[in-house]
Every structure is written in structure tokens, then in C-alpha cells.
């Protein structure tokens, strides 16, 4: 970590610090961005190159029980996309669900240095952490699934709101998670307990509970706000993937009532009612969603764009995966987790000739192009649900290059395009805006103050791309990638291996809550309460990001 670097002559994009393409030096000392570097520091001449903070993926699925099932179920997807070892790095396999090592190296190979796994059951936390430990180079964390948790439901139902908040904090802390995640709130109880039924509106009764998704979502937003988490509740809305779901999405967004709330992969929740004679073919609801986000500064979202080709649907939303199974082919995985969650997996291919898939593609692009605040409508494909993260460079080109987009639009289902608003949009993203949606924005939404920026004291996670009019090519293979001040990729090749940190939060709670939780464990779990909390051995390199009260308390 003692090494120093000086990057000279590069055009720097550091939107968090108002730097928009200026040629200036970036200095690195002891793993951090510094004001200066010693004279003997290694110099990187970045003439003709673009310097950005390392990419930050706010929502992807890269580690844990469901990811490993998705890996195991697709040997055919690995076979033609191998990831050979080098002298210094491990081998692996790719496809839409790469092995852990391939995941880390490939993220780094695109200039990404931080990624957040977006859905882990509390009971699966230990597994997710083991996989994240084997995911090299990048810093990482995960969101813990709490939106279908039976004990939390009971506390909420009984109006025990203080205990609800304490139990939520307990669950986040003992699993070493980064944020609370809600997936199709209420859906799991109907799926598992009522013959594969599902929630259809925010006011449906949730099985045996005197609760509705509306009450559950509002309860979590309130509790998470009170805890002052660096990233708020991260919501996968009800009715995801269904025609006409835009109404549910807007209703859910209104529940935030001015409080910070993040909406995951909103593309999948931005479908208007059925068009024409079809009962199911959705229209685009992108304009309504974009307008709502534009005018509500408390709301943030990641797009969850769809990219054509092979993907894997993997989700805590088990009924959704079951529905998609009819389009996905022969394989379907379902995995229920006691008291906590459901899960569904279907290998899937998005085809540009298929109406619905073309509409999904168009809706994703529309959301980007209609967004007036790139800091709050950030980049994702919900990897691998909308497409693999290796398609990011192509998605960047679709946003930055109008002619490329038009050429691609000519090849997709035209009926779908007619019913989207994409033809009317001529906007092109600038490099500065790309730096916001792929780096500065997600870092800010995550509350990672030392990521996504190149100010003095920031983590020295830096990516250097060779400028190229073909933005897909440019973003596909950075010339240099620096992680924690260490030159990991030089001249496109890995020079050393590197282990990143686990990023997690540890909100405070009243320890008395354990007396409430423990009896429930003895009755309804098959693992003892004493064996549930994840200990520090699963996070050998880690960083705890403070909550607002912790940060305030730490200040003199």
C-alpha cells in the first residue's frame, strides 16, 4: 500500500468534484487519492486517455445461494465462455452467471471496482460472504432480504414498531449486510402457503397476516429512515414484469412520502396497459416513471436495462420466475428459505424480434434518456436479469451514440418501438453523464463517500480508458485499472491479484430485541439462534460504513 502513482496528461471526469474533462494530474498515495505524489512516484502517461473513478454497480447478482444454483444449472453457458488462469490470477468460467473469480476479474476488466449483490437471504449470508471472499479485486457488499420475513411481519402486524425497527437493525447487523432489500413484499407467503398464488395489488391481504404490501413497505421505509442507513430501503416492487404495472410502481413510490427510497431495476416496473388487440403486450410506462423520479428528489432508481441475448432470471420473486418459466425453456429452479424468502431461477434469452423483449429494451433506454437527474437514475442491467454486466460497454454506446442507437432500433420489433417513446428521443449522454450514472451517482446513493470520486482522501480506485469514437470499444477494455492505489491492470493485462473489502453496515439496536427473536428461532428455524449471526471470520477485509447517528456520534 506504500506505493505512489502520478497519472499525468489524462482528461479527468470526476463529476462529484465538478471536474468535467479537464486535463490534470491525479496523484495516489497509500491507497488514497492525494494532493501530490513524491517525485519518485511511478508515472502513468494518460495522454489521449480518459481518467474516471472506478465503476460502482449498485445492483447486480454475483454471489450467494441463488447465484450458485444459477451457476450450477447452466453448464452449457460456461462451456463456450471460459476464463483461463494467468500466472497471477485464477481461472473460471463465464456465461451469464460467471464463477466468482471470473466475476471479479471481469468487473475489474471493465473498470469497475465496487459491486453490490442485491438479494441475499439472511440464512444465506454466510454463503454469500464466502463467495464474495472468492470474488477478487472489487469491493463488495450485499443487500439482505427482509421484505417477506415472518417475524418482522408479526411485529409489524402487532404494531410493535420499536421492536420492528430493532429487529430490522439486528438482522442487517448480524448478517453483515449493506442495506435492507424488499422483493415483491407479501408474495412469498402466498407463493409458499397458498398453492403458488401471488400478490396483485398493494392492498391484497398477505396470507394469514393482517397486513398488506402497502403497510409492509411503509413500515420498512419508516424504520430504515429512523436507522439512518447510508443506503435506504432498496425495493423490488410488486407486480414486477407484469403488463400495466406502472400503476403499482407509482403507488409504491408515493408511499415514500418524501423519505429517501431506492427503486431497483425500474425498467421491469414501467410497463403500461396492454396495447391494441393483445391482452398482454405492454405499452411503455417509462415517461410516467421518469417524470415521477424527476420531480421527487427523495426517490432514486437504477434502470435495470434489458440487453438482447442470453441472460438468467434470478430473483427473490419466485412467482415471477415461475411465470417466465413458460418462455424460458426446460429448466426452472425454485428455492424456499424458511421464514425469510422465496427464490426463482430461469435461464432466459431476450430476442430483438419479440414484441415484449423489444419493449423492455426500449423502456430501459427511455428511462435513461428521459431522466433529468443522472445522480438519481443510475446504471444497471440488474445483472444477469436484464443482461450480463459484460454488456455494459454496449449499453453505454447506446446512450452516447444516437446513430448507433438508430441502427439498432431498425433491427428490433417495430410494433413495440411504435408503442414506446424511443423514436422521439435524440438525446446523447456525455462522458460526464456516463461518469455520473456508472460511478459518482451510485456511490452517492450508496452513501459511499470515498467511492465514485477522485477528491483528496478518496479511495484510489481509478480507471483509465483510451479515448475512442466507438464508445463500446472504449469502455470494454481500460488500459489501466487501479484498485486501492495498486496497479492491477496495466496495458490491458493483470499484473497482480488483489483482494477487495467487504462493505457493510452495523446499525445500533437495543440488545433486548434478542429476547424477542430467540424464542421464534427455537420454534420455527432449523438452526439455533446462537449459530445464526455471522462472525468476523467471514469478512477478513472489511469496512463498516457508519449510519447517520453513528457518524454524528463519532464527530466531536
Amino acid at each position, binding site marked *: 500500500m506504500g506505493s505512489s502513482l502520478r497519472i499525468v496528461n489524462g482528461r479527468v471526469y470526476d463529476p462529484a468534484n465538478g471536474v468535467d474533462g479537464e486535463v490534470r494530474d491525479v496523484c495516489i498515495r497509500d491507497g488514497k487519492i492525494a494532493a501530490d505524489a513524491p517525485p519518485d512516484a511511478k508515472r502513468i502517461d494518460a495522454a489521449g486517455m480518459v481518467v474516471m473513478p472506478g465503476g460502482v454497480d449498485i445492483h447486480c447478482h454475483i454471489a450467494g445461494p441463488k447465484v450458485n444454483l444459477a451457476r450450477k444449472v447452466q453448464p452449457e453457458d460456461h462451456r*463456450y465462455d*471460459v476464463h483461463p*488462469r494467468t500466472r497471477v490470477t485464477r*481461472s473460471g468460467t463465464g456465461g451469464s452467471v460467471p464463477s466468482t473469480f471470473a466475476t471479479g476479474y471481469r468487473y475489474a476488466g471493465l473498470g469497475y471496482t465496487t459491486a453490490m449483490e442485491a438479494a441475499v437471504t439472511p440464512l*444465506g449470508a454466510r454463503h454469500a460472504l*464466502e463467495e464474495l471472499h472468492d470474488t477478487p479485486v472489487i469491493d463488495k457488499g450485499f443487500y439482505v432480504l427482509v421484505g417477506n420475513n415472518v417475524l418482522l411481519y408479526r411485529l409489524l402486524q402487532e404494531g410493535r414498531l420499536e421492536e420492528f425497527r430493532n429487529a430490522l437493525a439486528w438482522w442487517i447487523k448480524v448478517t453483515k449486510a449493506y442495506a435492507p432489500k424488499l422483493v415483491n413484499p407479501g408474495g412469498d407467503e402466498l407463493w409458499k402457503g397458498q398453492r403458488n398464488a401471488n400478490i396483485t395489488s398493494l392492498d391484497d391481504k398477505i396470507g394469514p397476516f393482517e397486513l398488506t404490501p402497502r403497510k409492509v413497505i411503509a413500515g420498512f421505509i419508516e424504520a430504515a429512515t429512523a436507522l439512518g442507513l447510508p443506503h435506504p430501503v432498496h425495493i423490488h416492487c410488486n407486480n414486477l414484469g407484469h403488463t400495466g404495472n406502472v400503476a403499482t410502481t407509482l403507488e409504491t413510490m408515493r408511499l415514500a412520502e418524501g423519505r429517501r427510497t431506492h427503486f431497483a431495476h425500474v425498467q421491469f416496473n414501467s410497463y403500461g396497459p396492454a396495447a391494441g388487440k393483445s391482452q398482454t403486450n405492454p405499452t411503455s410506462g417509462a415517461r410516467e416513471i421518469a417524470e415521477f423520479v424527476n420531480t421527487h428528489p427523495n426517490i432514486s432508481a437504477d434502470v435495470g436495462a434489458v440487453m438482447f441475448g442470453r441472460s438468467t432470471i434470478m430473483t427473490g420473486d419466485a412467482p415471477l420466475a415461475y411465470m417466465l418459466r413458460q418462455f424460458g425453456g426446460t429448466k426452472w429452479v425454485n428455492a424456499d428459505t*424458511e421464514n425469510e424468502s422465496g427464490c426463482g431461477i430461469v435461464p432466459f434469452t431476450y430476442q430483438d424480434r419479440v414484441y415484449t423483449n423489444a419493449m423492455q429494451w426500449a423502456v430501459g433506454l427511455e428511462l435513461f434518456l428521459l431522466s433529468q437527474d443522472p445522480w438519481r437514475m443510475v446504471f444497471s442491467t440488474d445483472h444477469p436479469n436484464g443482461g450480463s454486466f459484460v454488456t455494459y460497454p454496449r449499453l453505454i454506446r447506446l446512450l452516447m451514440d444516437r446513430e448507433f442507437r438508430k441502427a439498432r432500433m431498425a433491427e428490433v420489433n417495430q410494433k413495440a418501438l411504435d408503442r414506446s417513446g424511443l423514436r422521439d428521443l435524440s438525446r446523447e449522454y456525455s462522458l460526464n453523464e456516463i461518469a455520473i450514472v456508472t460511478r459518482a451517482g451510485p456511490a452517492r446513493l450508496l452513501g459511499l463517500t470515498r467511492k465514485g470520486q477522485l477528491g483528496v482522501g478518496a479511495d484510489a480506485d481509478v480507471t483509465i480508458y483510451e479515448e475512442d469514437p466507438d464508445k463500446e470499444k472504449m469502455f470494454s477494455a481500460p488500459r489501466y485499472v487501479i484498485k486501492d492505489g495498486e496497479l492491477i491492470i496495466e496495458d490491458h493485462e493483470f499484473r497482480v491479484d488483489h483482494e477487495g473489502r467487504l462493505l457493510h453496515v452495523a446499525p445500533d439496536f437495543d440488545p433486548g430485541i434478542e429476547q424477542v427473536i430467540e424464542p421464534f428461532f427455537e420454534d420455527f428455524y*432449523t438452526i439455533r439462534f446462537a449459530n445464526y449471526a455471522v462472525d468476523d471470520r467471514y469478512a477478513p477485509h472489511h469496512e463498516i460504513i457508519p449510519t447517520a447517528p453513528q457518524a454524528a456520534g463519532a464527530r466531536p
Partner: protein
Amino acid sequence: MSENLKFVPHATCTFCGCVCDDMDLTVDMDEKRITKAENACVLGKAWFREHGIEQRPYALIGGREATTAEGVEEAAQILARARFPLIYGLSDTTCEAQRVAVAIADMIGGTVDTTTSVCHGPSGIAFETVGESTASLGEIKNRADMVVFWGGNPAEAHPRLFSRYAVTPKGMYIPNGRKDRTVVLVDVRRTMSTPVADIFLRVKPRSDFEVLWALRALVKGRRVDPSIERRTGVSLAVLEDLVARMKSCRYGAFLFGMGLTMTRGRHFNSGALLALTTDLNEFTHWVAKPVRGHGNVTGADNVVSWQTGFPFGVNFSRGYPRFNPGEFTTVDLLARGETDAILILASDPAANFPKAAIEHLKRIPVISLDPKTTLTSQLARVAFTTATYGINVGGTVYRMDDVAITLRPAFESPYPSDEEILSAIRDRVRALLGGNRVPAVAPAVAAAS
């Protein structure tokens, strides 16, 4: 018994795939022996009782006593020299050790395979073909009002599958425990498990696939010829009754064993059962779960999968993982005489492999890691004595339903852990090779061929 007793609550039994984490152990610290294992089943009690500290050499090299360090040097030399080395076993050790084992295979361009290839390997292949609807054991405890055991004898092999997880326990929506469940057992013979069942289907040997396929047809409303009884020993009326119950239960669970996976049909059998589970989900909720034998065989599947993309039988010769059961599985590699060195981790293939495979083991340098003397350790060139996972060594173990549990070791062993020995071997091999061994063939060419 001495006065020097230690109480270790919430310990985990790693004897079988149930991985029960409610063991309250009493340890005699003078004798280094577990004297009491509360909540353990008969198998677990024996497991804890039998794993005291034995006086054995740290390592044997060619039968001669040696230090662990000398053993590491010899093992590293063997692995670095070998042209087609194999690392096998893995299912009775921690995930931490398994991760290092796969790392060594990757580094030297060898093969890694686990005992899965001789137990639920066919279920792994079936999973790759049709997927699986499955659940953590707690869901079965809390919700399953119908449980079907197929091709297994839990009463003798996994006793607490009945008492802790799937038959007698009370659950959230099963308030009366056993009374609220319909229990079905399917097997070719009566066993100690049979009396537990409400319905026992005795199928003729080698006809599981036909029974499963007939059930699939009936679930889908197709006609099945009454001659099914002649073929399978089960009458059409019994099958129809079973299907009616399956379609009308609230939450059904299959728990299937090696009576299904290692008999005629193998992965077709597992695949038929998993497909039947999927079919039933059109009517009500159904899940299926392979009942796993070794304490951490599920961890081995998970580790090998997340590191390589494939669950077992993975070869690294070309510089990246390739999976091909039959080609890169241990019995086949040995029987064909292809392997030129083998590291056997926490497993005893010399006791149960086919003769041709064992014959080859005798011809090549074998490195073994085991807490006990085994037939395998006796024919090993280098035999390490290791501490026992779950008793002397902490770490992570995966229950048969993929739930990861942290071990609470009861007392210290003078012997090193598998992870420590493997890490030392890895570091030494790396030094000998100067980093990972990278094959000369360009990957792009290799991938295309």
C-alpha cells in the same frame, strides 16, 4: 472420568448431511474425549465418541514416520511433477479446506472431483437438465403436510431427518407435528423406516423410473395402462390415489436418496423426480431435496461450483475449468489408468471403489489427509494425520439444503487441520512452479477445439 469437564453448547455434528447444530457437548479435557452429546442421534453419538485423539505419527512417507513439514515437501514435489494429477474427496472437511483444494487443482492444471461423483452426482446432472424446486429444511418442518421419501432409509442413515426436520416436528403451519402430515415411503424393500410411513409403495427393483413417469402422466391427466402394476409392482389404483393426495396437499416435499440415484436409470431417475416436482407446482406447492450423506458434501458442491461453474468432475488441464462426468470423474480416471498422482482429502476410496480403480491407486503416488488410519492412508506414499473437522477444527459446513453453518470445535488436536496442510502444500507448489502453471496452448484455440 476426570473433573476437568468443558461444556460446548450449540455444536454441530458433521457425521451426515443433516448437519444438526443443536449438539450440547460435554468434553473430558484431560482425556481429550467427548463424553456426552446431548440431542445427538445414535450415529452422531458414535461420531463424537469415536473421535478422541489417537497417538499417530504426524505424517508417514513411504511408511516411515515424518514431520508434517517433510510430508508437505514430499507432497508438493509429487504434485508439481505430476502431469495429470487428481484431487479427490473433499466432502468430510470444511469449506475453507475445500477452497484451498480447488485452488491447488487450478494452479497445477489438475482435476478436482468430490465424492458427489459416486453418490448424488446423477442428481447434479439431473439438476443441470431440468432444474429443481427445493427448500430449506425449515420450510419442510413449518409447512409440509405431505412428505415422500424415495429410495432411502432415514431411520438408519439420517435419523434426525424424521425427528428434527420432516416428520415429527411441529411447525408454523403444522401445529400437531406428525398428525398433520401424510408420510409416504417408496423403496424396493421394507426397512427400519417403513413403519414411519402412512403409505408404503414397494416398487420392484429397477423400476423407479417407470413409477415416476407414470405419476407424471397421471398428474398431467394422461391415461396409464393398468399393466404398470406388472412392470413396477404398484397398482394403478395406488398411483392414482397418490396423485390425488399430491395434487390436493398444501405443501409437498420429496426427499430422495441413493436408492434412486445409484440404481438403474441414475440421472434419469433423479430427473424424473425433479420433473414430477415441477409438474406438481401447477396444482400446489412442491419441493424436492436430495438427502446427502457426507457432512459437508453439499459444501464441496457449492465451493467447486462457485470457483469453477461446475459441481464436480472438473479438469483444469487447458488452463480453465472443464466439466465432463465420465471423463473427469475419479472412478473413471483411475480405472482407465490416466491419473499419475492423487491427493485424497478426507475420503477413503480404497475401501469402496471398484477393483480396477483401487488397483491403479496402488500404482501411483497417493497423498492422503485423514484423522484416522484408513485403507487409503495405508497405501499412500504420503499420509498426513489431521485434526477432525467439527470436533477439533472450526470452519464452515453446508447442510444438505445449502444452509451454511459455522462449526464450534470442542477441543484442540495436536494435529494440523486439512486447511493448514493444504495451504502449506499450495504455497510450496507455487514456489516450485513459479506461479500458476499456464498451458502453452492459446486459450482461444483450446476453447474452439
